[in-house]
């Protein structure tokens, strides 16, 4: 694995490098859902807003698909991180 790939951080939330992603793809993980579950990229505070498009591009290159053919992982609520404390009392009010 070349040094650039080892030193390039793809997922800043979980410190996942480009080389990590290449290794997951080489293992046969050919979808964003699988890669996400095996190394937590896209599961951090940014919820994949930084890493998902980058990994999609790597997957497309490795599998010979176009980026449009790479299925995106499920987007999950809440859209932005929210403090537990901010959610208190919602039920009583509404």
């Amino acid at each position: 694995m070349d040094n650039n790939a080892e030193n390039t951080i793809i997922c800043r939330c979980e410190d996942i490098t480009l080389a990590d992603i290449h290794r997951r793809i080489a293992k046969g993980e050919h979808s964003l859902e699988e890669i996400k579950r095996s190394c937590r990229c896209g599961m951090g505070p940014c919820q994949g807003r930084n890493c998902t498009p980058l990994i999609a591009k790597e997957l497309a290159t490795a599998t010979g698909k176009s980026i449009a053919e790479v299925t995106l992982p499920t987007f999950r609520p809440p859209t932005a991180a929210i403090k537990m404390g901010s959610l208190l009392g919602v039920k009583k009010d509404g």
Partner: protein
Amino acid sequence: MVKTADVVVIGGGVVGCSTAYNLAKLGAGKVVVVEKKYLASGATGRCGAGMRLQWGTETNCLLAKESLRMLAHLPEMLNVDINIEFHQNGYLLPAYTKSMVEQFKKNLVLQKKLGIKSQWLSAEECLDVVPFMNIKGVLGATFCKEDGHCNPFKVTEAYATAARNLGVEIYTDTEVLDVKTQNGQIVVVKTTNGDIATNTVVNAAGGYAKNVGRMVGLELPIFPERHEILVTEPVEPLLGPMVMSFHHNLYCQQSPHGSFIMGIGHPNEPESFNTQSSWQFLCDMAERVVEILPPLAKLNVIRQWAGLYDMSPDRTPIMGNTPELKHFFTAAGFSGHGFMLSPISGQLMAEMVLGNTTTFPIQMFDVGRFERGELFAEPLVV
């Protein structure tokens, strides 16, 4: 895709992968796993990732004890280089009512008899384990320090890797459409990627086990039930044990990775395949968990999701075949604790499929127990 197999396992969750590995290890011949989506895409990958010995029936205690013993050295046992994030920080189960205290004390007697080192803590002693816990209304608690956490994706990957090393073929993105029988024998499993001729099937389809059973005319009393869950941002170690309150119907654990994983069981959740998240859960969860663990109010929730418990009527797994179809085996109905029971369950299933003497007696786990009225009635499920 292979055209024939000695055994086809339906479902690429942790139970299916553990069963497939054990089948191959015991020399079952050609073993194939068929998974509709990807490995651990169902209940396994959506679960709370806890494992505990503190159960209310002897059977669950024994299955959990043996599974935990295996998880403690799983990568070595499977000869794979995968970190399954095994941690033992205990489970704390606070009691809030007299009947709960009575039940918990009964559990302790049972657990002690089975060599499980759980203990009774007074409300004040709970603070030694979780210093910031709100003990208002707590009448005491049971605690077992051997309970803990494992990463479900990694445990599944470990079993799948070990299974492949033994020649098991795993087909993902492949859905089973039908299982055909002829004169009381299974003949073929029809999938979206072709047919596999086989005489033996293991139904490890979790919440979909009933649908798979119906393919061979078997009506399994297993129903899917949505359970919601959320995760926070990772923070410094703060909470040692899993806190599980049957009074609040919640569990909450800080994973070794630093994030808090928590969920609640909804008593009126209907039978369905719904895995949508709801804002009601998000608010309910925050309300209840902050009441017990106040500092959690400062944590950011970053993601919520839902998964299906494969519920059985007595909340105990169904493992076995039926007299009508001896080569159709079910390993489902784990009712929310399939992940933590998967190591021993896979081994027992493989032994049963091959007609070997099982390590533990398990003939009483068959689906026939519901007609015979021989239930286990596990009281401790959130």
